[in-house]
């Protein structure tokens, strides 16, 4: 290393990033596994090791073992939902070329929530699969609408226009949710507990129902990873390099909306995961989406699982919903991003 010949230097510059990234990937996986183990073993009820082992073996005798058995799907849901939201955020930021894009900020989650509440009230929907379908439809409509409105006028989609369009649309949709919920007392309580968001709805059944959606969503996003790198160069240049811009944008957005919609269908709206995770991952691995997407998936899983564990432990025996924890972490981060940008870039 001390004798830095030309070949040596070249070798280092081509080889060095790969091991570092792989190492980081392995480290993130380890952290995720550790957190998942922590999430199963700790909670608002303290359970001994013998019971935990027994519960993992399939026994649900007694409160302790039943509690642990309920933690397993919850943990899986935290990992999957976090991964979905992280990837969705990374893809949205790539598609809109906008650092503030996030399913929560853009109102996609609220659109999905409205669709689910209307589905509950008017069509008597009750299963996670049906929720997922209407949530995806509602989220897709909202995403297209907010993006269209935020892109109007000169200068394309500036962060300000996009964020304002998202916040305003979110506020409008929230009034509609109130109007629907208030006129139907029979679904009010159900809708409210769902709307606030949380991982408590994670059961074996609901997980199985949204798993196909998540697989499709991840696949769509992964297929677009290379295309998203092209989009980062700007539409004209990407087209010049042979990229079908509209197709890539459409496929990637569809993937992101499927991920958000399926997640929202079970957990209710969870904000800021999709914003924070891709930004942190970009610091680690750079802007290449082929690395960014898997890292965002892992990072999202880590963030949501950690937030869930913290929420269960910090104010025992009261549980703090995971949405609150992510908002408390995410909002300062959002502000940090806004403050870092130059005024002109906003």
């Amino acid at each position, binding site marked *: 290393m001390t004798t830095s010949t030309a070949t040596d230097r070249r070798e280092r510059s081509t080889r060095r990033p790969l091991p570092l990234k792989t190492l980081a990937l392995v480290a993130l996986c380890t952290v995720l596994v550790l957190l998942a183990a922590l999430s199963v073993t700790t909670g608002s009820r303290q359970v001994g090791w013998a019971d935990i082992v027994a519960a993992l073996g399939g026994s649900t005798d007694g409160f302790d073992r039943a509690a642990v058995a309920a933690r397993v799907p919850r943990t899986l849901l935290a990992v999957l939902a976090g991964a979905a939201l992280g990837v969705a955020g990374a893809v949205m930021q790539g598609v809109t070329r906008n650092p503030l894009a996030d399913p929560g900020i853009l109102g996609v989650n609220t659109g999905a929530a409205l669709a689910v509440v209307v589905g509950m009230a008017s069509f008597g929907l009750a299963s996670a699969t049906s929720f997922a379908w209407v949530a995806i439809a509602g989220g897709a409509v909202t995403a297209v609408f907010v993006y269209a409105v935020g892109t109007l006028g000169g200068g394309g989609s500036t962060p*300000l226009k996009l964020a*304002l369009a998202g*916040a305003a649309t979110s506020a409008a949709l929230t009034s509609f949710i109130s109007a629907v919920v208030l006129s139907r007392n029979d679904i009010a309580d159900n809708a*409210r507990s769902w709307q606030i968001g949380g991982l408590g709805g994670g059961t074996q059944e609901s997980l199985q129902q949204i798993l196909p959606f998540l697989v499709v969503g991840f696949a769509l996003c992964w297929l677009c990873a290379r295309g998203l790198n092209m989009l980062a160069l700007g539409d004209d240049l990407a087209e010049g390099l042979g990229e079908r811009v509209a197709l890539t944008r459409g496929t990637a957005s569809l993937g992101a909306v499927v991920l958000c919609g399926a997640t929202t269908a079970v957990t209710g709206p969870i904000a800021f995961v999709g914003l924070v995770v891709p930004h942190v991952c970009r610091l680690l691995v750079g802007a290449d989406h082929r690395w960014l997407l898997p890292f965002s998936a892992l990072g999202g899983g880590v963030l949501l699982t950690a937030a869930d564990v913290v929420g269960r432990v910090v104010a025992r025996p009261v549980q703090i919903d995971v949405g609150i924890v992510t908002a408390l972490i995410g909002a300062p981060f959002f502000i940090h991003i806004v403050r870092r940008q130059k005024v002109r870039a906003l």
Partner: protein
Amino acid sequence: MNPRTRDRPATTGHSPAPEPASTLETVVRGRVRRARRRRTIIAVLAVLVAAGFAASLMFGQTFYPPGDVARVVFGQEVPGASFTVGRLRLPRAVLAVAAGLSFGLAGVTFQTMLRNPLASPDIIGISSGASAAAVFAIVVLGLSGTAVSTVAVVAALAVALLVHALSARRGAAGTRLILIGIGIGAMMDSVTAHVLDRAAEWDLQEAMRRLTGSLNGATWNETVPVLVVLVLVGPLLLAMSRDLEMFRLGEDTAPALGVRVARTRLLALTGAVGLIAFATAAAGPVAFVAFLSGPIAARLVGPNGSLFLPAALVGALLVLVGDFAGQFLLDSRYPVGVVTGVLGAPYLVYLIVRTNRSEGSL
């Protein structure tokens, strides 16, 4: 200086050239006409607010004739009407007008100051801060009445100052202020949601009241603080409206025209936040009233003079009509915030589209 010296001979009749005089006359006539139009619209709005106020006192489960209502308002005992009108309808109607005026005035202050019609207090987190704090005070701290208002006001001021301070790096930029406000608003909303979820015995009606705004069960305890703040702060903001209008010309132009930007901004911010906070503590964040009053007033009045008074009147009218419609015109009873929210949403969408397309202000 130059135009005036040229005009003087024309007006005093020494100059033989009639051209400048007629131009001047046209300008003056136009200005007078526009000022008259603005005064007319303000008068019409004021009459409508008064009519709405009177109607909301007279109509309800039972109708009371204007004579009875007037006697109750002036303090006489009228069997039946004294309770229904004096104890139930009067505080509610007064709160509707006072909160509406507060929302309208505060909203237009923000929109003018930040040069963006979308930058109203309900979008940039201030209303969210007030309602989060109010809900927290009621559910977790077990407070009620004036204490809740106090907590809400302090929280709204804290949020406003925090947003202002965080955005003030290297000169306060309106854009950054709006974005940071949106972030803080999202955080506050999730706190509200969480606190409401914890309160299991809390009935949904009350929960929604804190999320969308409602005048149900209004009493003098809630109404009086709103009125007091309105009387104190309202005239101040109206007096400052001329300076604030200068902000529309840009943050570089305003100081050149003699506006003390930092001082004006801080005063106006504090005043507007005070209005919003007290009104929100009493009635909840009545959706979109602060947001829509300014643009609607701008549509009515056009570019003639200050929007502050018309916007306040539009706000009062929106709350009165929304509350009346929510109580009596729809098949089930809705709080006012739901009515204004659902009615306001399409207009809001139209407004975003129009603003983004034209890049304009109000």
